[in-house]
């Protein structure tokens, strides 16, 4: 097991390197000269050739690409993503707290999504083809078709304005979580519920179930066994839900004025604040890879057969 873990973690390193390299290169894909972008963003009134040369030197942009990349990488590993072009503050001092806020929202939502999708998925699988199954499936289809910001607006309107039960926006109290989490659950639970359901169904029809029934094992025990096996697929999928939702809360945050990554990133994009965008992409891509690795590891722990494959 230990070898597998080490192997799996080592395997993700080259991928992380490629990702970091791509993210670093993003700046250079832009049609704009990075030096001019910096100067413009700082509001320097008159851009002269000397100033460009000077800034180039002070930003270290005149060094070879590879040298800059490794310097940048080393700095990133210490969470030093440089300074925001617009505010001049260190990127992490802005991104860090926002990341934490988004993470809080994400974790609460993912937990809620897991609970909902497992409960509904199991119930529907056990009653496959019955009215409950059909209606839950239909509703989930419909709910995942709604633009989440639209849903958010409707929910704010109904619960905050009409019924006056919940705060409209911000992140002041535990109550502030209810609406954004509800929107995320409605938008995503449908997808994960379907995964749990079909995973359950495929297990229900496995030979071991038939065998267990034939041996007269109690039905509860069989269901527990099925659940355990079904969770193998589900666990890895749920693991991936964390980085995916982390990256997709943008619109929901925007509607609820959640002080998270989404709001920050949209503003950075609008003001072309490249170091911020770069750091955002890097942080999320790394989270994506880490959770991917984690889900593989969990899978391996649950299913020893997998460990043999690299």
């Amino acid at each position, binding site marked *: 097991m230990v070898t597998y873990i080490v192997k799996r973690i080592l395997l993700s390193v080259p991928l992380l390197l490629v990702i970091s390299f791509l993210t670093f290169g993003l700046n250079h894909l832009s049609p704009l000269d990075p030096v001019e972008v910096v100067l413009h963003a700082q509001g320097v009134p008159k851009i002269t050739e000397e100033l460009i040369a000077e800034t180039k030197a002070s930003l270290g942009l005149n060094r070879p690409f590879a040298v800059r990349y490794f310097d940048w990488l080393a700095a990133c590993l210490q969470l030093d993503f440089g300074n925001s072009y617009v505010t001049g503050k260190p990127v992490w001092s802005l991104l860090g707290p926002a990341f934490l806020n988004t993470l809080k929202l994400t974790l609460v939502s993912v937990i809620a999504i897991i609970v909902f999708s497992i409960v509904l998925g199991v119930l529907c699988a056990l009653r496959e083809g019955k009215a409950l199954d059909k209606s839950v499936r239909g509703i989930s289809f419909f709910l995942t078709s709604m633009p989440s910001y639209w849903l958010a*607006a409707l929910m704010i309107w109904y619960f905050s304005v009409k019924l006056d039960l919940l705060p409209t926006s911000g992140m002041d109290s535990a109550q502030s979580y209810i609406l954004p989490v509800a929107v995320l659950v409605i938008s995503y639970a449908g997808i994960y519920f379907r995964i749990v359901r079909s995973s359950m169904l495929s297990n229900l029809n496995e030979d071991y179930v038939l065998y267990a029934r034939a041996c007269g094992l109690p039905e509860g025990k069989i269901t527990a066994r099925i659940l355990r096996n079904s969770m193998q697929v589900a666990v890895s999928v749920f693991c991936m839900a964390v980085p995916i939702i982390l990256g997709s809360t943008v619109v929901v945050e925007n509607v609820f004025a959640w002080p998270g990554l989404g709001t920050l990133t949209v503003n950075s994009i609008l003001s072309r604040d490249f170091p911020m965008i770069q750091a955002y992409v890097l942080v999320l891509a790394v989270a994506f890879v880490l959770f991917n690795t984690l889900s593989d590891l969990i899978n391996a722990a649950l299913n020893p057969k997998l460990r043999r494959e690299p």
Partner: protein
Amino acid sequence: MNLYKNIRNDKLAALSFSVILVIVAAGLFAPLFAPHDPNEVQMELRYASPSWGYLLGNDHLGRCILSRLIYGIRPSVLWVFVALVISVVLGGGLGLIAGYFRGKTDAVIMRICDVMLSFPGYVMSLAVIGILGAGLTNVLIAFVLMKWAWFARVIRTSVLQYAESDYIKFSKALGFGNFRIIVKQLLPVSLPDIAVTSSSAFGAMILQISGFSFLGLGIEAPHAEWGMMLNEAREVMFTRPELMLAPGLAIVVIVTAVNFLSDGLQVALDPKLIVSKPKLQRQEIPSAVERKGEEVA
């Protein structure tokens, strides 16, 4: 043909398909359907209620909401479809090549796909928009850039099982060219997978583009787009909530239709699914897993 028959038998899918057809037709022939010029500003009609001349009322600049809704089909649905087609052609082509030739070609293409897929879809689009700047074209470019890898991988997997089959070997033995084998024999067998995967991606992409426009990163004024209309309606979200309805419902209707159609296609193309045989149920997993990364939250 079987597919046609299956779809026809699935009333929900048939209904969805006709809804999509009507919407696409309305978008293509928008000038015929729209009662007014969608960009015509008439300040004296600012926020006017629905009337016979303007069935859905007027927006903050007195523009006809119905006409904007109809013209909005173009970026919200048709252009998204174009982006989808491009990424399917690109990804599908590479997937076919990878699956057919195997070996090094396969390894290279798949490693590139791995890297592309290691960025969460939404983050990737945001990064591309961040670099290229906001705007409809850039959002569509971002879509193509991040979707092709997914299609490549799905289609490669579906081709793999056939690439080693006897009739392909037979064709090779007969001396048919690689290109001909790919187009004549592999493409048809992978079509069902392409149809299912792309139709399920379509709904997600429609949601996404409206989401970007809602954030102000998509289409520029004055062009009509559903997400943009919602963004504008949001300014008066609680004073005039009725403005949120039309574009919002339009999105819900098209995405629901696309999703039901995709579901129907999946069943129709793989009749074994209807019988709900154990192993084949797993087929549902990839398409559902795939959708998760693309949903607009």
